[in-house]
């Protein structure tokens, strides 16, 4: 009993079809608490679609999703978020005209049920503002706290995208290519942030850079054409000849 | 009874000719030109001027109104509308309401605020009996002309090369552009034809709809209803929507005059609530 902790997140025969394309094909998957799991696969494999299904951004065509053993398949995005599921987007979804501090406060207010306070000015809950400022400081964004988000460098916007997800203190965090497009020198910073997350948060990371994946993940799933191709520990995947052939091989060709 | 049905159908077909250009441009460029009625008004007032002041035959007014509004449309499209395609719907609405206001004031300035009367040529006035019902000859004339136009439009869209390009552009402008379709050119041409049809509709409507400066505002609402019911992805959708609207409006005003005005608005709101993509559409409008 103690060996197999109850998974925090499970899917059962999950399928998503866009017209003729099956973007997620019969995926049955489970994520144990505290997981450091990487989801890899070539472009168009259906990774983002999978995250969209988990977070409720897209409705599933068939199959089920369980969060802490509860069937959340028909839950709204909002209810899943409230239940502890947070995500980042491959393409930044930020508020260009707000400041990072305000952006984080939006999330914290929501978590603390403080967002319905309509009379007291923003900032009257100094405990929440301090928490937001501390989170920004942790991500090296403290100096830009009051700047316009739209004026930040891309790498910093990427960090803010993660910070929003962290602000809701999630139990499960889905990171969709958090380092994509971030300049070489700043990528490590993104990964350090991810590595420093509390151990009890269960993580799914989508990433193309194999070095980062192997440094971060304890377990890995490979998605090909929407279906789970192989799953295993980091070492198993690293050794698996099929993965080399299908995924790593392709990547080498793409690079070459 | 049958008379009312006939009147309703005639009215609906007229609405279709008036509105179809707007539906296509909305579907094509996702651009909402509320000022579409101004082109109809241009055609209507051209008819008034040509007939009442110059004494030109009504039959000549129809093609003239088409050409006049089409040219007006293409000029405005190239000079002004073009700049608005990538703006928000709110901006487009504000802009076209601005144009409506200007058109209303301009017509008021030139022609006065009172409704203009257009006298039908003798060959079109009077009534005939069809299937036991008294039907105005002019209503019959409207049905025939609009019917021919509808068939012609349907033919152009379904069967010609231009039509297939138009359909491709409506379905997905970016893909069509990628395939080498000159979407901008198609749009200018469609805009011209759509405005021209509105002008023609205005001319046809001049004897039966009241032609006064508030025309574009009054009919803007009808156009919106046609769009909300018929959708913008086909022309059959707006066609049936127009007929439905025409019959409902004429019938409603005849049978239940007190609440006649509600019927159409209520239909519109109900459709928008229960089928936001339109009653006569298959795929969702973008």
């Amino acid at each position, binding site marked *: 009993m103690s060996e197999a902790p109850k998974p925090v997140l499970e899917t059962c025969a999950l399928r998503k079809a866009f017209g003729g394309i099956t973007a997620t094909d019969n995926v049955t998957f489970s994520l144990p608490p505290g997981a450091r799991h990487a989801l890899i696969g070539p472009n168009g494999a259906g990774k983002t679609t999978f995250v969209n299904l988990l977070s409720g951004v897209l409705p599933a065509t068939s199959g089920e999703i369980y969060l802490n053993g509860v069937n959340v398949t028909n839950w709204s995005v*909002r209810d899943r978020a409230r239940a502890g599921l947070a995500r980042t987007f491959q393409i930044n979804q930020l508020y260009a005209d707000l400041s990072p501090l*305000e952006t984080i406060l*939006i999330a914290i207010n929501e978590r603390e049920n403080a967002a319905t306070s309509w009379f007291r000015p923003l*900032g009257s809950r100094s405990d929440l503002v301090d928490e937001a400022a501390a989170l920004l400081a942790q991500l090296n964004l403290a100096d830009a706290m009051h700047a316009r988000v739209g004026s930040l460098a891309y790498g910093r916007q990427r960090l803010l995208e993660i910070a929003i997800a962290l602000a809701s203190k999630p139990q499960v965090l889905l990171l969709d290519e958090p380092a994509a497009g971030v300049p070489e020198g700043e990528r490590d910073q993104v990964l350090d942030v991810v590595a420093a997350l509390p151990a009890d948060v269960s993580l799914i990371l989508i990433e193309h850079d194999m070095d980062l994946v192997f440094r971060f993940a304890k377990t890995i799933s490979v998605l090909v054409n929407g279906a789970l191709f192989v799953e295993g520990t980091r070492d198993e995947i690293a050794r698996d000849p099929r993965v080399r052939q299908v995924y790593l091989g392709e990547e080498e060709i793409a690079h070459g | 009874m049958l008379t009312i049905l006939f009147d309703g159908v005639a009215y609906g077909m007229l609405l279709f000719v008036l509105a179809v250009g707007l539906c296509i441009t909305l579907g094509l460029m996702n651009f909402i030109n509320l000022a579409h009625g101004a082109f109809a008004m241009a055609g209507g007032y051209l008819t008034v001027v040509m007939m009442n002041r110059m004494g030109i035959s009504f039959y000549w007014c129809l093609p003239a109104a088409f050409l006049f509004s089409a040219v007006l449309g293409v000029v405005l499209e190239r000079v002004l509308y073009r700049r608005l395609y990538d703006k*928000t719907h709110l901006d487009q609405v504000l*802009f076209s309401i*601005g144009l409506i206001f200007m058109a209303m004031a301009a017509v*008021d300035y030139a022609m006065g605020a009172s409704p203009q009367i257009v006298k039908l040529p003798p060959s079109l006035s009077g009534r005939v009996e069809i299937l036991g019902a008294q039907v105005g000859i002019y209503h019959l004339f409207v049905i025939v002309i609009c019917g021919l136009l509808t068939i012609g439009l349907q033919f152009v869209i379904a069967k010609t090369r231009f039509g297939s390009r138009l359909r491709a552009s409506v379905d997905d402008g970016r893909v069509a552009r990628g395939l080498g379709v000159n979407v901008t050119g198609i749009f200018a041409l469609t805009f011209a034809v759509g405005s021209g049809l509105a002008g023609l509709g205005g001319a046809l409507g001049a004897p039966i709809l009241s032609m006064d400066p508030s025309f574009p505002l009054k009919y803007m*609402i009808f156009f919106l209803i046609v769009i909300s019911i018929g959708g913008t992805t086909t022309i059959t959708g707006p066609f049936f929507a127009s007929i439905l609207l025409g019959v409902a409006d004429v019938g409603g005003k005849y049978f239940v005059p007190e609440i006649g005005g509600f019927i159409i608005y209520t239909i519109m709101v109900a459709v928008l609530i229960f089928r936001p993509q339109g009653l006569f559409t298959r795929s969702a409008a973008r």
Partner: protein
Amino acid sequence: MIPDSPNKPAGWLLWRTRWRWYELAFWAAAASSFFIFPSKLMLISEIFILGLLAVSIDLTLGFAGLVTLGQGAFFGVGAYAAGLMAKYGAGTAPFSDPLLGLLVAGSVAGALGFVTSFLVLRGSDLTRLMVTLGVALIVEEIVTQAKDITGGSDGLQGVMSSPVLGVWSFDLYGRTAFWYALIVTFVCFWFCRRLVNSSFGLSLLAIKGNPLRARTIGMPVNTRLVAIYTIAATISGISGGLLTQTTQFASPDMVAFHRSADALLILVFGGSGFLYGGLIGAVVFRVMQDFIGNITPQYWLFWVGLVLVLLVLFVRGGIIGMLMALRERFSRKGEGS
């Protein structure tokens, strides 16, 4: 760094919401117009009222990003609600009390707003425009058709409000009307200002900016939109009630389409998303209307249209947006030299 700003982030956020000198100057100017233009008091009261209507639209459009073309419906419903209260309560003191009338006007309009808010949650901007317009047209139709209650197209005659607080009765010169409209407008504005500067207000901006993001943060987007739409409708209703009470008359003109269009224009003209845009827009709009209206009354519409067209083509953010761009340029020049 901004001078005086406390360095703690919470303090900074609080500091930003303080009343500024130019805000105080604005309201002081509004109040002093009583002494500067004693012959134009009715006009000025109407400016406050139109401004308040535009401010209520700003709540939905400028802060929550909901496009509406039918705010006139709530204005009109409020106008008639207050009018009916004043008319039928004429003899019996408590019913024709203006403040009670405003309360009823706001409640009725708010109730209509709450019910119709569910219609604007779905669909695109375009469907929202059409639904709100449709609702406004239905209300207009009801008002013109229900002749027995509303007086139909002749308007509601015999509106007689009791004196405000039982002391100040509405006079011919509009003195009471002026202070009454100013104070009610200010109180409502103050309420809106608190609202948009709160956590709730920030969450509205989040919805306007990116509803998907707001949902993934765990925000109940629809609930918030229903709330703000209802609040805005209530304030529109209050402004409608104010107009009836200060003019002692309600007409179908108050629910007409051009009411919604004017109010939207006023807001866009002044600049949406700043709250003050509606008020400033109303001043300019009404003063221009009065000025041009005296020369060529029927062509006023032409200039309104022209302004709208130019605004959309060339000016982002209306008057306030222009002022801010000017200040930006000015301060940059100052730094450069």
